[in-house]
């Protein structure tokens, strides 16, 4: 019972962090939320994987956050450029996040038939992360935001997939994918930097 409550608490944390990632424009807050998101994900994965393997997700996630953070720290401070093509209002993003939450809440019971071996909090948490990540990708074209969106989608996918597949090789490959994505993002951030300075 207590474990179920804590699992739902982890889902609540995922809701807060993924919504926060969508709303905040400060990269420090974003990376802090991402790190917290990986902690909640770790808790959900722990239901299916032994501690040592689940910890790989947490350590990888924190390494990802650190890699992006260190790269961003080395770049000049500036306001994030507004994206003309996308709706920017916080109210709009909150509304869109609300739709994702509603979709997740309505889809979880139906999908629990398909994923019979997966507990409701894990299913809800993973669907929520995937939905929020896709929403994030849909409303931004900035490198940092895109990488955060992709990492969120992958975190959601990995949470669910951990309940279905416990191969060490897959865990290792997915950890490399996450780190690779962070490094690719860091590379693109640094290569984007000079031109962005010019446009200021």
């Amino acid at each position, binding site marked *: 019972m207590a474990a179920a409550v804590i699992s739902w608490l982890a889902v609540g944390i995922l809701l807060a962090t993924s919504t926060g990632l969508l709303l905040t424009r400060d990269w420090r807050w974003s990376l802090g939320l991402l790190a917290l998101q990986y902690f909640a994900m770790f808790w959900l994965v722990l239901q299916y994987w032994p501690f040592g393997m689940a910890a790989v997700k947490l350590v990888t996630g924190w390494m990802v956050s650190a890699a992006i953070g260190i790269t961003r720290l080395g770049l000049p401070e500036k306001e994030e450029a507004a994206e003309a093509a996308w709706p920017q209002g916080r109210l709009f993003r909150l509304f869109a996040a609300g739709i994702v939450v509603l979709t997740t809440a309505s889809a979880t019971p139906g999908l629990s038939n398909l994923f019979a071996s997966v507990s409701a909090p894990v299913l809800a948490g993973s669907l929520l992360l995937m939905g929020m990540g896709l929403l994030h990708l849909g409303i931004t074209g900035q490198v940092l935001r895109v990488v955060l969106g992709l990492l969120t989608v992958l975190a959601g996918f990995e949470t669910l997939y951990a309940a279905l597949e416990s191969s060490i090789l897959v865990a290792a490959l997915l950890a490399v994918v996450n780190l690779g994505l962070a490094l690719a993002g860091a*590379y693109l951030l640094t290569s984007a930097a000079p031109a962005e300075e010019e446009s200021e």
Partner: protein
Amino acid sequence: MTAPFLWIGVPLLAGPFSLILRRDRAVTIFGGLTAAILALIALFVPIDVAMLIGPLSLKISPSAQILGRSLSLDQADGSLLAILYGLAALWFFGAQAAGAARRLVPIGLGILGLLVASIAVQPFLFAAPTIQIAALLTVPLLVRPDQTPGRGIVRFLIYQTLAMPFILFAGWLLAGVESSPGDLELAVQSAAMLGLGFAFLLAVFPLYNWIPMLLEESPPYAVGFLLWCFPSITSFFLIGFLDRYTFLRTSPAFLAALQTAGLLMVVTGGIWAAFQRHLGRMMGYAAIAETGFFLLAASLNSGAGIQTIFLQLVPRGLGTAVWALALTVVQPQVEGFGFSEVRGLARRNPLAVAALILAHLSVVGFPLLAGFPVRLALWEGLARQSLGQAAWMLVGLLGLLAGAVRTLAVTVMADEDTAWQWNGTQVQSLMLGVGILGIFVLGIFPQAMQPFLVNLPAMFEHLGR
């Protein structure tokens, strides 16, 4: 020695090692020779057969264990490895002519090693994360450190990353279908997941918009390498699914979806190419049409269809390499690849323009060129199934042909008193000359590829019969 170490481990180690070489020429020779030697070993040394060399007994074991799973390359994979590493050698030797050796060779060897790992990994659906890691490795190849990343690279990253979850989920669902074959709903769900995954991975209509974007914003030789190696190897991944799961290869709906997607890519690629005014984007649309041809061949679901897929491998690799090299060679002589900027280019670099046009015509399936036997075989197979679909393929080919004719018209459109020049280095001329010769040889003597292709069907237990 194990086959996975030789064809996966060696390129993965050779890539970083080439970074310590200082001169472009040394990097090119190192990368080209490494790939060529691996191709020759794959061609002449049988896997899992003991060979006596004097007093020494040499045997390449087919599999190796890594983290509890197996990487396996058997005798049937030998021909494919020879083709892949042989074409890679061509790309690496051409890299010096393109001025891209220092980036292409280290990263290209790594990508190739990972993509071969995707063929070798068991269970085979674990190939998805391996392909994703290879895709991430292309980022520094496509974007220079001093270049602002454009929309193309961002979309490429998004689409390739989204492909992996869909394919892994599809693999899990397909395992369920295997255990309960009567569950129609599960079969539909898994097929839909798989379709979405491969739509992202192979840049199937309408998810291909990153290709022309990338060819506008990134070095053409690097994008060309990407457009050669990824579709060539991921297509084997798709055929692996079709071969493994009976319900997929016998499902008329799934095969019809493949055929429709293929036709859409050929027709839209052809039509956009016909109206295109940018040489880079033109190459992008031709690459899209090439993937469409592959999907069409896969949808034929017969021994002939599989043979057509194998037949495409070498002409596609060679044509893309020649096209990308030609674009790279003319790049310093023009301000951009727009039609207004390349007007009269044939007088300034006739060899590169000839290579460009011939590579384009080869994609169209022009007689005497490398693509001709492939298009003919595909068209014949398609016409046997439906004349209407064969007609749609013709529309796509005519669009591509119109693009080639327009390119030719623009590049030869110079004032009469403009003098002919011979720009470009000797290495560039040599590589372009070899490429043009190869396009003609494969077109006139397609049977020259037969020794490489004859064993490939053995890779697939059911479709290869």
